[in-house]
């Protein structure tokens, strides 16, 4: 079985409906209603994006989003942004801890939100590239893109949990 890879300009990608896209190849082929998903949601945000049809079968893989035509690239990025809700934490407003339940109030790129972390040992992951991934009590995810770029107060608040 051969897999179709999309490398760049050979295809034009347009929005179909919400997070679904259509592919128009320059050789005339057309595939519609595909849903882009990351194959590496944690380690590769713009690499290897799989395109699934409504049955969940893979139609193609985009090797690198940045190599697409600018409009196509934007379409894919918008879809991914819409699908993957991983608010980026900009600032820790409040943090309290009692008996291993953490309550964080944070400012994110999607607004202010308060959530609970039940088991900080498994819920807070320190990645090697400086990112910190957080999973709350309801399996929602959050990300601190660069720990060192946070303000001093937020850093001191988070430090003990890492």
């Amino acid at each position, binding site marked *: 079985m051969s897999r179709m890879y999309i490398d760049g300009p050979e295809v034009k990608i347009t929005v179909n409906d919400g997070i679904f896209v259509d592919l128009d190849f320059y050789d005339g082929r057309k595939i519609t209603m595909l849903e882009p998903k990351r194959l590496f949601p944690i380690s590769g945000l713009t690499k290897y994006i799989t395109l699934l049809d409504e049955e969940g079968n893979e139609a193609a893989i985009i090797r690198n989003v940045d190599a697409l035509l600018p409009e196509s690239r934007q379409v894919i990025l918008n879809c991914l942004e819409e699908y*993957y809700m991983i608010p980026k934490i900009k600032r820790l407003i409040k943090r309290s801890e009692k008996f291993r339940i953490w309550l964080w109030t944070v400012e994110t790129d*999607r607004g202010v939100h308060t959530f609970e972390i039940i088991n900080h040992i498994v819920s807070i992951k320190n990645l090697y590239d400086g990112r910190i991934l957080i999973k709350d*009590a309801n399996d929602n995810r959050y990300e601190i893109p660069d720990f060192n770029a946070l303000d001093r107060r937020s850093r001191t608040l988070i430090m003990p949990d890492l």
Partner: protein
Amino acid sequence: MELDGVLTNMPIPGEILAKAGDLSDGGELSGGNRPLFALVGDLTLKGRYGVSALFVFKDRLTAFDEKHSGGQATVMFCDIAQAKVKRMYGNAVLRIEGKDGKTLDLLRFTYSVADIGDAAALFVNKINEGEPVDQSLEIVKAAYRNMRSFCPKCGRKLKTPDSECLNCEGKSKVIQKFAKYIKPYVKRLILCLLLSVFTTALALVPPYITKVMVDSVIPGADRSMLLTIILLLLSVYVAQFSVSGIRAYLLRVTGDRIVIELKKDVYAKAQFLPMSFYDKTSTGSVINRINGDTANIQSFMLRITQEAVVQAFTLVGVIIIMLAMDWRLTLLSLIPVPLVVICGRYFGKRVAPMYRRLWRRGTSLYSILSDTIPGVRVIKAFTNEKNTINKYERYANDWLEEDKKASVTVSAFPTVITFLITCGSLIIWLVGGGQVIGDLVSGAQSGITTGVLVSFIAYAGMFYAPVNFFANLNDTYQHTLASAEKILDILNAEPEHDFGKGNKPERIKGKIEFKNVSFSFDRSKKVLDDVSFVIEPGDVVGIVGTTGAGKSTVINLIMRYYDDYEGQILVDGADVKDIDMDHFRGHIGYVQQEPMMFRDTIFNNISYGNPDAHVEQILHAADIANAHGFISRLPDAYDTLLGERGVGLSGGEKQRISIARAVLENPAILIFDEATAAVDSETEHLIQEAIERLIRGRTTLMIAHRLSTLRKANKIMVVDKGQIIEFGPPEELIAMQGKYYKLIQIQSMSEKAREMKEEENLEISIT
């Protein structure tokens, strides 16, 4: 939670009520057609945090979100073809597919409310299928109940609706939890304490005698007095050291007992923790807790109950003696105390998080060990030794790095304290020495003699030890707290529900019924979606479907490995949750694809679940399982000692042993999860034979990839993407020409191809 009689997951935000009109008077939502339930979302349709809400009526949905025109949208049920929740990553939308083919996103929310979103969608679809409102509403109500409820005191969410709130449990409860382990040894500990007080009191004697020596005996050249005093000192030392030896012994034994009790409890608790706990927690971390953290707690408890008291006693004793000898010098030697205390607090605050970080690193390191050492065969097979070593080194370096950081603080602390103490003695030398010299020169009598000075210095040294101890106590306390936290994580974790509680029905006939069961491991994906079926006693059900379809999950739920599903599972008409778990599992024979073997003899491995079984029962079980033949050919036969996880047996042999295990249970329900997936066709035949002998008269669930193994099945269940798409007698399914029919065709084709290949090979090897 109900608001004016309307079921809702959260209080409905004022701004939405303002728009919609009050529920109680006047507005759209009150009056004759009130909403049946409400769903308050936490995201806007644009994907930002904010307020939105959905009201579900008997005949329509009304959603409030800034993206809808006019801030609200209403859809009548009769216009809806299908309602569904589209789960994305960390968020989901409630999407309506209209009869006109258009789709409309009504509401967006995070996983926190996605379960209720599912219930709402299900409700709409059920009503549209013509089911009565009341019945469909029950499903919704169950979903609301299932949603983790809130602690009435502090408003935090609870792990399960009726679990205790860890937050409100309070510190005293935590202390109580550990105090329990000390209680049985209180008498012993008090004895130790008395012994310590005695030795401490004796330790206070020698400096005083020094004073007498220096001030009167030596200047007075009193030889006989000298001898008497030395004998006195000798007896004091003998008493002191022999008593403290006995005490040390007692304390150690008591301490070990306490820690063993604690270990036993943590271990026992770890056995009863639900599978979902182990899905998230590495076994390495659990082992680390049982071994290391309990020891930390033990040493802390001893410190608190013993040393703290002794040190306090020393402190008070020394101060009294010092005051009696000379109050001015006493005050002088107290000068560094505030500094010591301030330092202690400062360091304590900084050290606590360091220990926690260190613990995390240590656990990662430990987890690599517990992952890789047992998996050493795989590592070798992939010649992955170097990578494994690198990974270990990286984590080890991480730990080292963290340890280095902590070490700076941790080792600076005692040094600073000791320095301060030493400065204290300098002050005594300076002032006291000055006085003694002054007296010598002027011939005056200030009361400070050389003897007083010397013994004072000795007492001052004894006095700072307890100060140091108390200043350091915080550090130890923090270290222990980090450990206590980890242990409590296990001790406080919800055990599997009602283990050892519930009904123990005499006989389990084996009727299994799923009623609208939905389940997800984490909220990101529904693994089972509204599954309903009935299996009659004695049915042999073949479960088929692609990998990942949810077949094993159905089994996991029947086994009650996971309990937080929606819907109901009934066995013989009774909710499984009402049946004693221990009792229930005892009536199920479960044969897995990779049977778990223990480092023990084959005999003990077979009798694992029934250690009291008679030898001949075991031979019989092995017979039925087609295992007796190969076992008896082994040199040590039933006494063959297996390695870890059954090293020394082939996959098919292990499988037959695990079948023998199941035979011995004499179970009412038998479950095979791809029991023959990993063996060759010859062995498969042997196992198949064993299985067919075993299933007679028992309700059997058999997951199999090779459909040929299901020839005894009188019903087939086809699972696909978390749903049951076909269920019934095989002939009917074949007649239907659905998925099962297709699977059979595909397999018989490849089967034929294989046979042909095998024949070809045979011919080649013959010629």
